[in-house]
């Protein structure tokens, strides 16, 4: 598909199908269209509330673009099929919610270990367990980071609106391709089902990235090496005669299994971490409002960032020196920037729709003389401008 050089044909189809302009659509649809614009032509999924509209949109649109929609027997099969398709050169995606995300954890680790680009959208709902299926939440923040076993790095982005979801999905694909890694999109049930005005751009305005392919036989022989020093090996796709061996077991640079030599494991897993750590410029992204002179810094993410901004704006109107810091890439956490901002603030408030998760990340980067306080709400109802403003006033 796109990656195999039929780009002009794909651009023709995209232009023909999706006229630029403003559309009134759900966050879930925005995610799906973002994926289509980013070049996703393979989707494998399983129905689950509140993510199903992503699957439905992909099922409707992908065949038009010559792409594949597969409904697998479960979420485990879905992510497995994606990895398989990614190794044949497709940009791939699935969407799910908490219970399905829990089931995908093993193969998410497989994708990390085998450096398989894929995009996994978790439309967070109120949990644990089945919880409140139709209600939004931000309770999977740490699951996205730590859900699979063993030492692993992960990149996760989190959109703050429907429009943002369109662009963040594209960005997720670009990061996945650039760094040959799975990327989690931490979306939520509130934005998923919220309809807003969303601007669909012209296809030419969308910058998309393709994974590195081996330039020569030498590179192809080291599918897990580091020929360019950036930690990202070129990906010798299946079907090109490279005879690539891919395994989730600890492996050498040539892909062959070695599960007994400590140095091999150390080299592999440390490179996986280094690949993510040294390429922060590829994915690090955050938004700041009034942080220059903020005494009260609000740190928020995802769906809560928006009412947080509303609250900060109102606080400013009231003469309170409030500011807002919104990590858009939530894992790895933008710790350095957090540390700088933390030095300036007197109070840090962390509103989120859970019982306190991102606040633990914030805590690692701030000194003990800062008052750090969570603004937490669970039960599926988003935090409001008024609720956050009340907290700001309380510490002003």
């Amino acid at each position, binding site marked *: 598909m796109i990656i195999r050089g039929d780009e002009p*044909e794909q651009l023709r189809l995209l232009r023909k199908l999706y006229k630029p302009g403003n559309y009134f659509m759900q966050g879930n649809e925005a995610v799906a269209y973002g994926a289509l614009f980013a070049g996703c032509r393979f989707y494998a999924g399983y129905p689950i509330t509140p993510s199903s509209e992503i699957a439905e949109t992909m099922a409707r649109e992908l065949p038009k673009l010559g792409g594949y929609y597969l409904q697998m027997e479960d979420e485990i099969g879905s992510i497995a099929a994606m990895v398989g398709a990614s190794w044949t050169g497709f940009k791939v995606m699935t969407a799910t919610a908490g219970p399905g995300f829990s089931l995908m954890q093993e193969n998410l680790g497989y994708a990390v270990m085998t450096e398989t680009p894929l995009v996994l959208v978790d439309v967070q709902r109120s949990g644990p367990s089945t919880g409140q299926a139709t209600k939004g939440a931000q309770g999977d923040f740490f699951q996205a980071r730590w859900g699979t076993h063993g030492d692993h790095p992960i990149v996760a982005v989190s959109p703050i609106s429907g429009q943002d979801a369109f662009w963040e999905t594209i960005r997720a694909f670009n990061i996945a391709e650039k760094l040959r890694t799975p990327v989690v999109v931490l979306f939520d049930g509130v934005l998923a089902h919220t309809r807003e005005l969303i601007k669909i751009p012209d296809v030419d305005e969308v910058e998309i990235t393709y994974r590195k392919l081996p330039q020569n036989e030498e590179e192809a022989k080291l599918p897990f090496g580091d020929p360019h020093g950036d930690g990202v090996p070129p990906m010798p796709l299946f079907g090109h005669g490279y*005879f690539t061996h891919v395994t989730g077991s600890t492996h050498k640079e040539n892909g062959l299994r070695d599960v007994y030599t400590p140095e091999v494991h150390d080299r592999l897993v440390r490179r996986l971490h280094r690949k993510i750590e040294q390429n922060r410029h590829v994915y690090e992204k955050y938004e700041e409002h009034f942080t220059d002179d903020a005494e009260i810094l609000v740190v928020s993410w995802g769906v809560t960032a928006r009412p947080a901004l509303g609250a900060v704006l109102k606080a400013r109107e009231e003469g309170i020196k409030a500011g807002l810091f919104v990590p858009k890439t939530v894992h790895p956490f933008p710790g350095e920037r957090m540390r700088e901002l933390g030095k300036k603030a007197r109070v840090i408030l962390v509103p989120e729709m859970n019982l306190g998760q991102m606040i633990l990340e914030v805590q690692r980067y701030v000194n003990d003389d800062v008052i750090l306080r969570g603004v937490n709400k669970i039960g599926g109802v988003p935090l409001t401008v008024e609720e956050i403003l009340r907290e700001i006033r309380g510490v002003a």
Partner: protein
Amino acid sequence: MAKEIYSTYPMVKYLRKEALPTALCPGCGGGTVLNAFANAVDGLKLDPKDLVVVSGIGCSAWIASPYFLADTLHTTHGRAIAFATGVKVGLPDKKVVVISGDGDLASIGGNHLIHAARRNIDITVILVNNFIYGMTGGQVAPTTPFGAKTTTSPYRNIEHPLNISETVAAAGASYVARWTTAHVYQLIESIKKAIQVKGFSLVEVVSQCPVQFGRRNKMKEPAEMLRWFLKNSVPVSKAKNMSPEELEGKFVIGEFVNRQRPEFTEELNKLIDEVQEQFGLKEV
């Protein structure tokens, strides 16, 4: 010494020499399966560049991973067929073969097995059934014969084995056959057929694990196990006239089904064509 053997073995061209020798125990049936598969590929004059071999976790998953020189995807436990589904959809012109064990494909991966058979996706599955979890130390498998001893059924197995071939046939596969490692020529021919069949094909190979299974069931030597296979093998045609009681403990061998049914990737691509047609997206 080892090198010399490889240089005289005609199938060595299909193997990753740098990965040899294999990690399989002496007497393991896995070698027979690898040999049969290589011979089938050779017999069909298949270019290994047109092959993708996928496997899960366990000894049998190691038969081809990484030893067979093709694109090889060694996946998580039980999920090989689901991974292979993605590969096949992405590369519809290549032959996708899954080689893995009974525990991997029929226990933890049982759901993917029956669903792939239902979809009738054009994948060939070579399922090596040695009745046991070899790699983890000889635990009971869903294929372990009734009454056999394993480390987790130390007082003899009380569960009945899953009839894998029969279940996969019922789920809708195009081609299903069962052989044992004592039927090498039939096995090679069957694998050849399976690879050529359009649709989901399963070749179940009853195989010996003298170390983990045989040892605990009074068959320490591989030859004893092969004799056991031969003695208890019953051809499909004959089995049809036998009662379930008579069939207890027997291995029904032969072809169970060989039929034409709509194939998944073909239907999928046909659908895409129709949709593109319907929306006027085909280039004129």
